[in-house]
């Protein structure tokens, strides 16, 4: 497929808007810009972009409102842009349907990596053929056989640990909030935060060389976990 992907950039700061669109255009994306919520929604409905970069600090509307509206008719990937401290906002946005987030100020490589991940996942979903296995670095997960290997050695995970690692790998590159993981694994009515930490720690000790220097699953402080993909 050779057509250029269309990205809707929603950002009210002109300077930032400028440089992001410059980067995107340089990397072969088409860019349409909106600097407030209303325009963003109308542009999204009219142009059906492949991905939306949404700044959470918009003047007229709450970013969450925009996400809700777009999610009501589309599953197109949404990446939210926000400042570092407001992890609550990020978590809420992710729980409402955003796919990923990026923190201001960000490097261009990080931005591009996230965009690629976002597109990849949306392709996968529209693809509908589930993968049988996935390999990242020295980690290999075979979904059919339900075997996890690190450096070709089989790793024994408990059923919960397997579920978690599978969930993360199926959303590789995307951040998953604590809450969404807990909901997926344990169900919606239980608050198993402690159990999640313990399980993550165990997984780390099984697949990572140094649990304090994880290669595969990194922690997004205050938000959740992310399995690192080849994009970086």
């Amino acid at each position: 497929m050779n057509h250029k992907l269309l990205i809707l950039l929603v950002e009210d700061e002109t300077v930032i808007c400028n440089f992001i669109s410059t980067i995107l255009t340089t990397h072969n994306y088409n860019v349409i810009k909106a600097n407030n919520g209303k325009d963003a929604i109308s542009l999204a409905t009219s142009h059906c972009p492949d991905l939306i970069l949404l700044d959470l600090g918009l003047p007229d509307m709450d970013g969450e409102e925009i996400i809700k509206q777009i999610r009501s008719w589309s599953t197109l990937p949404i990446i939210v842009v926000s400042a570092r401290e407001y992890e609550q906002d990020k978590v809420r946005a992710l729980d409402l349907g955003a796919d990923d987030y990026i923190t201001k100020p960000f490097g261009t490589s990080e931005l591009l990596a996230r965009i690629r991940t976002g597109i990849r996942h949306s392709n996968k979903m529209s693809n509908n053929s589930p993968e049988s296995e996935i390999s990242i670095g020295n980690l290999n997960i075979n979904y059919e056989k339900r075997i996890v290997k690190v450096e070709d050695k089989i790793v024994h995970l408990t059923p919960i640990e397997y579920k978690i690692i599978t969930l993360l790998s199926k959303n590789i590159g995307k951040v998953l909030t604590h809450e969404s993981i807990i909901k997926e694994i344990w169900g919606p009515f239980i608050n198993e935060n402690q159990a999640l930490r313990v399980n993550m720690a165990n997984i780390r000790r099984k697949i990572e060389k140094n649990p304090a220097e994880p290669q595969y699953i990194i922690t997004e402080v205050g938000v959740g976990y992310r399995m690192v993909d080849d994009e970086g």
Partner: protein
Amino acid sequence: MDKITETRKFLVCIGSSPTSAKCIYWAEKNAETFSSAWTAVYVESDEGLYLKDSEKKSLQSNMELATQLGGEVVTLNGHNIAMAVAEYAKRTGTTDIAVGKSRNKKTFINIFKLDLEDKLMSLLPDVEIHVLPDHNITKTYRKNPKILLIKPVLTWKDTGITLFTLICASVISLFLNRIHIENENMILMYILSVLIISRVTTGYIYGVAGSVFSVLIFNYLFAEPYYSFIAIQKGDLITFTIMLFVALTTSTLTVRVKAQANYAFEREKRTEILYEINKKLLVTTGLTNIVHLTNEYIIKIFRRSVIFYISDPFNGAEGILMKYEEEEDMDFMMSEAEKAVAHWVFLNQKRAGAGTEVQMASEVFYIPVISRGQVLGVIGLSCMNGSFIDQNNLLFLRMIVSIAAMALERQQLSDKQRIILVQSEKEKMRSNLLRAVSHDLRTPLTGILGASSTILENSDTLDKDTKLNLISNIKEESQWLIRMVENLLSVTRINGESSEVRKCPEAAEEIVAAAIGRTRKRFKDCKINVKVPDELLIVPMDGILIEQVIINLLENAIKHSGVDIEINVDVKKEQDTAIFEISDNGEGITEQDLPYLLDNFNPKKEKASDSSRGMGIGLSICMSIIKAHHGKMEVENNISGGAIFRFALPLEGGTDSES
């Protein structure tokens, strides 16, 4: 009347007579005209001991009236009223004295006695004596005839002494008779014994009885016919009269001396107690301690339950009640009705309650604790069953209250001072931070501005490498600025007033990993070794803030260690704390900087802060964050070179495990 500027001092002699009230009003009126203070003086002489109840009451109400109208009530002691008043007047520089016209019947004795006003005039030639007539001419008021109304006090001891003395006298006299001494000496013997009896016994009765019996015994034993009572001669009458006179005089003297001694003793005891209270209060700190001490003393002295309010009960404050052990149910002192009276006292700065003219139905007497026109508290004494506080005790109470007032004021001032100190510390910190931040912001911004203008203005002449260099400088400075801003924003996560953070249980290894990850993004080539305990260590913390701390420490280590550096991050658990250690193998910290590093930033202004490049702010923010977590942070030099930064976080205390 107009206010006259001449200074005068007014004094009024009061007693139990109704004229005293008139004098008091007179004094108050004049004192107001002259804008001066006035005093009401009551002289407690021996007569005062024998006042009827109705007279005591009217004396007390006179004193109350004087106090209510704004005068100072002073009680003097002395046998001679005029002398006592004169001495006081001289001492205090009184210019005017008011007395009520004496209305005594001119009896034989009184004819030669000077009236009080005359005595005063002769003793105080420079003072104006004002005599206020009493329009009520009927003589329903009469001075006590001293003797007849005195209740005789009979005790076994005194009876014994009387009998013993008389018997001794008789025995000695009989002996003298045997050796043929004349009768006159026997008479003298009996006079002597009457003297002794009057001196030793209480009251007049024994002296008088002694005189009578002496005469009778003398008649019986030594007058003809012997051993009979017949033939009382003329001479006996004279003897008897003389003896009686001696008895009375001596008894009077004795009574007076005893009264004075008692009074002096009471006075001394009071002064001692006041001194003791004052001494103890001087070393007492803390409002509740002061209150408890005062309450204790009041109970000890007045033997009543006491309640002390340090602020208006209508503002929600509860008084501190201390019960006198012999009084039963004292809960009524904390009732709403009583609180209302206390509230009134707070507002009006006047006494109220039992025994006063305000809220008389109350069973508690309230007195305000005032210092410099401000009510610092209210003290209430229980007056159950109408046992009001008399004037004497009231004076004493006022003295104690004024001591308590000073102590309370002192405490208030010290509390205020402490608050001011804390606030000024905060202010200093804030302005220090601002200054340091502004300074540190300027440097990188200068760099960015410089580099970008250079490129813009010389874009044709500069070669590509130089341009790239300048641009990469811009990038570095910006990253540095971002880090600083993040640091500052971290501070806002710490609640201003309470300096506390919202803690959540986090996995130590995750936070450390995240921090290292971010640092690696910026400094790609540095070597960081990290070690965490095998067992998962969960620490209650604000993850973002602690991540910030670790990032700060890592970047610090990198900045100060040159290029080939190796940084070690070590996390371990020690009893109920989690210890995080970040050590480098760089140059370490100079001895002189070591103690200041974590306390304040840039204490040494001579050292160019460019070289330290905001090390101060980063570290001080780390310190604030750790402190807000109730943790500890320290720094030391490694023996093998380089510095170790260590912080510890308590494993206790965290909120709900909401992510």
